[in-house]
C-alpha cells in the first residue's frame, strides 16, 4: 500500500505535466480537477503507517494524525475541484490557473506525508508559493497587492522554517534528517531554543499567528471563492501539521509551551476582535481562521508544556474539523453569491450550523473538536481562556452570518449551479459528521460527547457569546478596519524599503564607475595584504 503515498503526492503533478504536453488533456483539465486529490483520499484511508523512501533526500511517511489531515485536505480539494469549474465557467479554459491549482494541491497533500526535513520544506514551500497563483487568479489591483503581501510573508516564513530545520539538523548528532529523529534530539540540542523560535515563526506565518497574520485577510478577500476554500481549508494546515510534527511532545517544556499558548490565545482573541470590524464576509472568515489557528497553537502550547503524547492526534482532529468548516463556508459563500433570496435557505441554514460549529455548537463536529482538545487545555486558566475564545468565536460567527446574507444575488430566482451547492453540502456534511466517526480513535468513548456536563461546558460560552453579539449589533457606531489591519501601518515601511533599494541602486551605479571601481581594486589589494599581515 506504500505505493499510495507517492501516488497521492505525484498524481496532481502528473496531471499537470500531462496537461502541459497533451492538448487533449489540457482542454478537459478543468472538468478533471476533482480527480486529482482522489489518490490522496485513498492513501489516507488505506496507507496509514506506510513509509516510502524516494530518490535523493526525499521520503514520505504517513501516520494517523497525518492521515486525518491528508484525508480531510483531499476531500476539500475534491469538493472545491467540483465547484471551481462551475464557478469560473469559461474562464477556466486557461491553463495557468489550473497549473497553480494542481501545484498547490501537490504541496498541500504531500506536506502531511513528509517524512524528513527536506521533503517537509519542499512541500511546505510548494503549497505556499504556488498558492500565489490562486490568490491572484482573478487579477485586479487588489488581488496583486494581496498577492505581494502573501508572497512576501510566504518566503519570509520559509526562511524562518529553513533556519529552524538547519538548526534541527545541526542539533541531531546522528546526522539523520528523519523528522522523528530530529524531534527526538531536539530537547537535548544545544540550539533548542533558537530552533523552537524559528519553528514557531515559520509555522506561525503560515497559520497566521499575530503578528504574522497580515497576509491572510487581504488574501482571502481577494482570492476567488474556490481558491479561498482550499487555501483556508487545506493549505493553512501545512502550519498545523508542522506543529504536530516538530514540537517535542514527548518532553515537557513548560516555558516554551506556555509561551506558545500565550501567542496562540492572543491570536485567538485578536482575530475575533478585528474580525468584528470587517464587512466583507470573506475577511470575516479570514479573521476567524486567525482566531482558530491561534486556538490550535494555544492547545499545542499547553500540550507541549505538559508533555502530552496524545497531542498530535488531538490537534490533527481539531484541524480536520476546521478544514471542512472553513473550506466549506467559503464554498457556501460561493453558493450564496450566486443565489437569490428564494433559494437561499438550503444554503444558508447549513452554513449557520457549520459556522456555529466552529464555536462548538453541541452535537456538531465542532463540538467534538472542542471536546477532543479539552484535556490538553486543562481546567486552569488555559481552560477558561479556551471557553472564552469559544464565546468570542460565537460572536464572530454570528457576525459572519449577518454579513454573508448581504452578498446574496439580487435576482430573486437566481440559483447557484448544482456543482457549487453540492460541493458545499459535501463539505458541510463532512464537517458535521466525520468527527463522529473519528472521535473514538482520538479521544475515547463517544459517550463523553453526550454527557450533560460536556454539553453545558460547550453551551454556556455560546450563550454568553450570543448575548454579547446582541449587544454588539445594537451599537450604532461600530469600528471598521481594513483587511490586514496593521498592514496599513506597514505601507509606509514598504515605501521606505523602496527608497532603500533606490539608494542601493544609486550607490551601485556609483561603485561601477571606472575610477571608483579602480580605487576599490587598489584598496582591496592593500586591505588583503594588511589583513594577512595583521593575522600574522
Amino acid at each position: 500500500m506504500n505505493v499510495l503515498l507517492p501516488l497521492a503526492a505525484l498524481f496532481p503533478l502528473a496531471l499537470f505535466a500531462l496537461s502541459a504536453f497533451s492538448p487533449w488533456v489540457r482542454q478537459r483539465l478543468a472538468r478533471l480537477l476533482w480527480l486529482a486529490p482522489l489518490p490522496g483520499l485513498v492513501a489516507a484511508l488505506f496507507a496509514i503507517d506506510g513509509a516510502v523512501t524516494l530518490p535523493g533526500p526525499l521520503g514520505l511517511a504517513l501516520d494517523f494524525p497525518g492521515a486525518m489531515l491528508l484525508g480531510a485536505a483531499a476531500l476539500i480539494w475534491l469538493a472545491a475541484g467540483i465547484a471551481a469549474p462551475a464557478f469560473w465557467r469559461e474562464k477556466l479554459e486557461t491553463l495557468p490557473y489550473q497549473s497553480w491549482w494542481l501545484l498547490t494541491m501537490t504541496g498541500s497533500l504531500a506536506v502531511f506525508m513528509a517524512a524528513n526535513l527536506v521533503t517537509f520544506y519542499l512541500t511546505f514551500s510548494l503549497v505556499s508559493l504556488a498558492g500565489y497563483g490562486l490568490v491572484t487568479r482573478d487579477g485586479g489591483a487588489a488581488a496583486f497587492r494581496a498577492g505581494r503581501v502573501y508572497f512576501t510573508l510566504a518566503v519570509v516564513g520559509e526562511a524562518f522554517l529553513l533556519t529552524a530545520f538547519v538548526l534541527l539538523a545541526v542539533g541531531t548528532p546522528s546526522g539523520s534528517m528523519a523528522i522523528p529523529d530530529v524531534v527526538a534530539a531536539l530537547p537535548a540540542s544545544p540550539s533548542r531554543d533558537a530552533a523552537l523560535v524559528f519553528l514557531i515563526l515559520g509555522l506561525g506565518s503560515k497559520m497566521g499567528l499575530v503578528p504574522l497574520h497580515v497576509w491572510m485577510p487581504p488574501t482571502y478577500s481577494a482570492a476567488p471563492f474556490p481558491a479561498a476554500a482550499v487555501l483556508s481549508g487545506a493549505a493553512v494546515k501545512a502550519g498545523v501539521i508542522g506543529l504536530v510534527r516538530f514540537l517535542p511532545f514527548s518532553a515537557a517544556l513548560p516555558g516554551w509551551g506556555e509561551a506558545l499558548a500565550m501567542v496562540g490565545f492572543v491570536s485567538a482573541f485578536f482575530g475575533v476582535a478585528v474580525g468584528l470590524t470587517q464587512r466583507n464576509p470573506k475577511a470575516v472568515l479570514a479573521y476567524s481562521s486567525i482566531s482558530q489557528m491561534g486556538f490550535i497553537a494555544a492547545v499545542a502550547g499547553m500540550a507541549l508544556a505538559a508533555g502530552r503524547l496524545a497531542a498530535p492526534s488531538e490537534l490533527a482532529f481539531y484541524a480536520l474539523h476546521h478544514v471542512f468548516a472553513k473550506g466549506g463556508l467559503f464554498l457556501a459563500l460561493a453558493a450564496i453569491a450566486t443565489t437569490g433570496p428564494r433559494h437561499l435557505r438550503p444554503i444558508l441554514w447549513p452554513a449557520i450550523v457549520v459556522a456555529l460549529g466552529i464555536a462548538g455548537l453541541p452535537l456538531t463536529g465542532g463540538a467534538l473538536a472542542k471536546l477532543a482538545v479539552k484535556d490538553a487545555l486543562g481546567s486552569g486558566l488555559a481552560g477558561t481562556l479556551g471557553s472564552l475564545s469559544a464565546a468570542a468565536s460565537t460572536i464572530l460567527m454570528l457576525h459572519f452570518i449577518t454579513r454573508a446574507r448581504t452578498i446574496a444575488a439580487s435576482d430573486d430566482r437566481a440559483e447557484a449551479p448544482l456543482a457549487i451547492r453540492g460541493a458545499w453540502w459535501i463539505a458541510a456534511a463532512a464537517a458535521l459528521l466525520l468527527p463522529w466517526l473519528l472521535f473514538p480513535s482520538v479521544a475515547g468513548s463517544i459517550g463523553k460527547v453526550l454527557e450533560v456536563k460536556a454539553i453545558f461546558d460547550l453551551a454556556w460560552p455560546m450563550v454568553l457569546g450570543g448575548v454579547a453579539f446582541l449587544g454588539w449589533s445594537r451599537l450604532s457606531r461600530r469600528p471598521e478596519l481594513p483587511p490586514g489591519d496593521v498592514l496599513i501601518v506597514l505601507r509606509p515601511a514598504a515605501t521606505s524599503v523602496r527608497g532603500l533599494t533606490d539608494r542601493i541602486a544609486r550607490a551601485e551605479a556609483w561603485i561601477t564607475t571606472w575610477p571608483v571601481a579602480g580605487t576599490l581594486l587598489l584598496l582591496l589589494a592593500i586591505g588583503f595584504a594588511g589583513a594577512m599581515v595583521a593575522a600574522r
Partner: protein
Amino acid sequence: MSLAPIDAATLYGLTGAVLVGIGLYGIVLHEGFIRRLLAFNLLGGGVFLLFGVIARRGAGAGFSGDPVPQALVITGVVVAFCATALAITLIERLAAEDDANDGDGSS
C-alpha cells in the same frame, strides 16, 4: 633577511616598484581607454622589471641571471602585446561605430 645592497639590481627593482605605482594610477584615473591601455603597458613594464631584478639576483651556474624569470618575461611581454593589440582593435572599432553614428546624426 637583510637589507639589499645598493646595486643595479636593487635600483631597477625600485624603479619597477615605482613604475607599478605610476601605471596603476594611470589605469584608475584616466578617462580614455587608449590611455588606460598605455598605463597598463607602463605597469607591465614595471612588473617585468621586477622579474628582471629577481633574475639578476639569481645569477649563478655561469649565467648572468636566472634564466627562468627571463623566460617568463619574454612570454609575458608577448602576452601583454596580444592584450594590447586586441584592446586597440576594440577601441578603434568602437570609435568607428561612434563616428558612423555621429555621421548619421542618429542615436
